[in-house]
């Protein structure tokens, strides 16, 4: 096994392009190292992206915020600006694993691991986040919901690396939230999850994006759920419609973590609860 620690993203992409065997990107390593220990992954090449300056930065511009691919969950949680503008995204990322895991784990790693139950992903999709994808020859910007194509599968080419995540600029009357259901209080994987992002105008929901996790092969945006609350003050009727739309959008499996019946039902419950938090954060009453 070869280990490389390039200084630029393009260099990282070039290493990946040249490798004929199994190549893996190492950010926090909280998925890769576990798989290697369990014998599920036997890389020929590991490309460590933590030495790339662009990967470690959090920056802001007129269009929004940019979070580097190697920024850990702990760093994100300590960033006051992001905690204020995108609390749902930060909370979702901070739910992953333990304190020890948080000091290593990254949002981009969580995204590229491509688990249907990844916590940060529904929150990012609801937020309208995009990925800056760098290949050996070109760069592109891709909405997060286009990255994961199935369990363990992404749309990234073999030579592509996600350098950063962008979050759009935030207006005043806006809020987001993420909730997951786990049987324990922590150290667990989502059985169902829901991310909600909305904006208000004169106390009424103007825009909304709702995304569910762990109820389909990938996290799913549910436009019908958004439609159910747009134009409302999130009254009980709107919330019931939201829940029904979410449950209807689920396509889960029965497994060791939960049943189909349970996931479908609780997806609606969590979406309602997350919508209420987002609404409150946006200043809704």
């Amino acid at each position: 096994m070869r280990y490389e620690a390039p200084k630029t993203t393009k260099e990282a992409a070039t290493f990946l392009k040249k490798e004929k065997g199994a190549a893996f990107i190492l950010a926090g390593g909280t998925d890769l190292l576990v798989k290697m220990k369990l014998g599920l992954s036997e890389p020929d090449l590991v490309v460590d992206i933590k030495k790339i300056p662009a990967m470690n930065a959090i920056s802001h511009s007129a269009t929004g915020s940019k979070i580097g691919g190697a920024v850990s969950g702990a760093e994100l949680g300590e960033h006051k600006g992001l905690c204020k503008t995108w609390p749902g995204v930060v909370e979702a990322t901070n739910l992953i694993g333990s304190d020890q895991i948080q000091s290593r784990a990254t949002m981009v790693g969580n995204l590229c691991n491509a688990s249907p139950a990844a916590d940060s992903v529904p929150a990012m999709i609801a937020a309208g986040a995009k990925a800056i994808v760098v290949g050996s020859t070109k760069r592109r910007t891709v909405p997060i919901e286009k990255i994961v194509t199935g369990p363990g599968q992404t749309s990234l080419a073999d030579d592509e690396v996600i350098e950063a995540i962008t979050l759009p600029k935030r207006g005043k009357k806006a809020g987001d939230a993420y909730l997951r259901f786990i049987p324990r209080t922590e150290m667990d994987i989502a059985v169902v999850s829901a991310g909600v992002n909305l904006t208000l105008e004169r106390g009424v929901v103007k825009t909304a994006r709702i995304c569910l996790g762990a109820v389909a092969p990938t996290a799913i945006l549910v436009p019908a759920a958004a439609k159910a609350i747009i134009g409302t003050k999130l009254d009980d009727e709107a919330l019931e419609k939201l829940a029904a739309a979410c449950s209807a959008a689920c396509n889960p499996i029965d497994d060791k973590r939960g049943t189909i019946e349970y996931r479908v039902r609780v997806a609606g419950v969590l979406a309602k609860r997350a919508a209420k938090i987002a609404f409150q954060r946006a200043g809704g009453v």
Partner: protein
Amino acid sequence: MGNDTSYTDQKFEQVGRRVRRPDGVDKVTGRAKYGADAYAPGQLVGLILRSPHAHARIKKIDISKAEKLPGVKAVVTCEDLPDLTGGNRGMMDILENCMARGRALYDGHAVAAVAAVDKTIAKQALKLIKVTYEKLPHVTDVDEAMEADAPVVQDFVFTSGVEPKPTKPSNVSGISQFGHGDVDAGFAEADVIVEKSYKTEQTHQGYIEPHACLANMSSDGSGELWVTTQGHFVFRNVCSTLLGIDIAKLKVTASEIGGGFGGKTHVWMEPVALVLSRKANRPVKLVMTRDEVFKASGPTCSTSIDVKIGAKKDGTITAASASLRYQNGAFPANWGMIGAMTAYACYDLKNVKTVGYDVLVNRPKVAAYRAPSAPMAAFGVESTMDLMAGKLGMDPVEFRIKNAAKEGTRASYGPVYGPIGIGPTLEAVKKHPHMRAKLKKNQGRGMACGFWFNFGGQTCTDLNIGIDGTVSLTVGTIDVGGSRASLSLIAAEELGIDYEQVKASVADTASLGHNDMTEGSRGTFSSGMATIFAARNAVEVMKGRAAKMWDIPVEDVVWENGGAKATGKAHSNLPPLTLKEIAAKSPQTGGPIAGHNETVADNAGVSFASHICDVEVDPETGSTRVIRYTVIQDAGKAIHPDYVEGQFQGGAAQGIGWALNEEYIYGKDGTLQNPGFLDYRIPVCSDLPFIDTEILEIPNPNHPYGVRGVGETSIVPPLAAIGNAVSNAVGVRLNHIPMSPPRILKALDEQAGG
């Protein structure tokens, strides 16, 4: 004089202190050596190849390629573990569980093993072993395994306990019946009868330290084994028998133990390590992965239980019965029998009958797990007791008090009780402030009782007094719960010295006579008893030495306040001699001073507990949190109260995990779906409330200090206490453990729907 085991009321100086444990500093600084921490020059890495199938015929194992891989020093299969058991089927079962013999009986059953110079090569070697399997039909559910057309797990098993003896093998290895009186007449007398069926899923002890050992067989036929175990003497005897080694030639040293809870009372892989070492002529270290721990060691039974209780309107139980079906994994055992013994042990019943069924399935061999078999039986009985109290309109505590067993009660499993703690724990529940605390919406309170037999057994202890007057206490029972501190307190008490002057350690098998396992909550009870007698033995020696130093008859010497005192007017001018002074002169008065005792500690006092628990249920997700928990248990005498409380809390914590989320999940193919701590959901710290404790002390009449074992009973009541609390919180009664969120939500839906 001497070894009188009867209880004497006395004022203690040392016993009852909350002193620091002797192994504490090493454990918190990482210096303590556990199973995987041993090293021997030239040691190899051992790995085991395991069956991916629930049940399969092993047609061929080709090890030729693995043997040729450079760096591989030994490859073994069952051919290297010939049958030396002389027809002892129980020993054969242990051997067959260590290594499959022609058939893989469960997912994870060992089929071959390698020893290589490093882990990478050992892993490669495992991949090079080619096993040809022929898959066979399997069964993993206890009720399905009892059906007539179920695949037969072991064809040598004919149901015992039935007449006439069956002519065909089946998965029911034994049927056992307990009770007295006439239950039919009792039920006919009842005003109200409640009948209900329950299921509990299989759980693992979840000890944080995986099984690990270092085996070192010499070419002269002797050997050494370093191992994490609850009973190194028993491991020595079993390994010696299975491998044809003289008992005296196999020295077993027990490491510090990172949790056992019964799971480390069984030999799982140690003979394989020894045989790899013998074949390679090198030391071999074998450490299980967590996946292996789940698949091939330790779990307790899953069960299916029917309970029927009849009572008069005034709350008197007229009859009680239960049918208890326990799966034992792929090898016969008597866990169902034990369940049938414990089910009604808390109550004074005129007519009672329990029938235990022991059933084989294609799952790992079931091991003891903290009061093994009792929690499931208590779940059925204590849930039904609450249902009955509800039907009678009685307070559940009053209903239990009315029917509680007491001194003189004939237990449902046979014996007549001496002084016992069930009544007092129930009275303490009634008085506890927890019972009067206010509950909020979706919160509920439940309580339940539990029983465990406790055990004594063979014990051998040495006590040596150093030249400086400090005391080495050498015991043979593994310290799983702070027993070295407790036993040091006992030695200090007997000698009349301070705790800090005593250092206890656990000896290897070459240094002491046989000791049974640390099981059945026997550590402090039995080694405590042997320590008392060893200390009294040393006191007699020291009295003799003092007599010699004074040149007076030994009859004129007594032992008081940690020293010898001359009695009688003739010696009134002699100042007392301290233990330290006597020790300092020992080279001149007859040599080293030692005390010794070997015993079979009988009459371990039975143990009872009552638990109170508050839960909050989220009716939209079925999520349940335990928000307050109180354990009240009889300890006989709490030698070291911290560790008694620790046992109470630990058992409750494990019971809470079992009740709410822990379970073995098998796929349709009979393979285990969740062999890891991510999906086998043991509670994390934030899942648990502070677990409050109250120690009652009703002395065991058969121990000089009144000690009863305290380690196990605390896991018995939680399943039912939580079930009763959930029922009181949201009005649904869960009859299936664990009460996981999907099960609770489903029950709530069914209730709402009709």
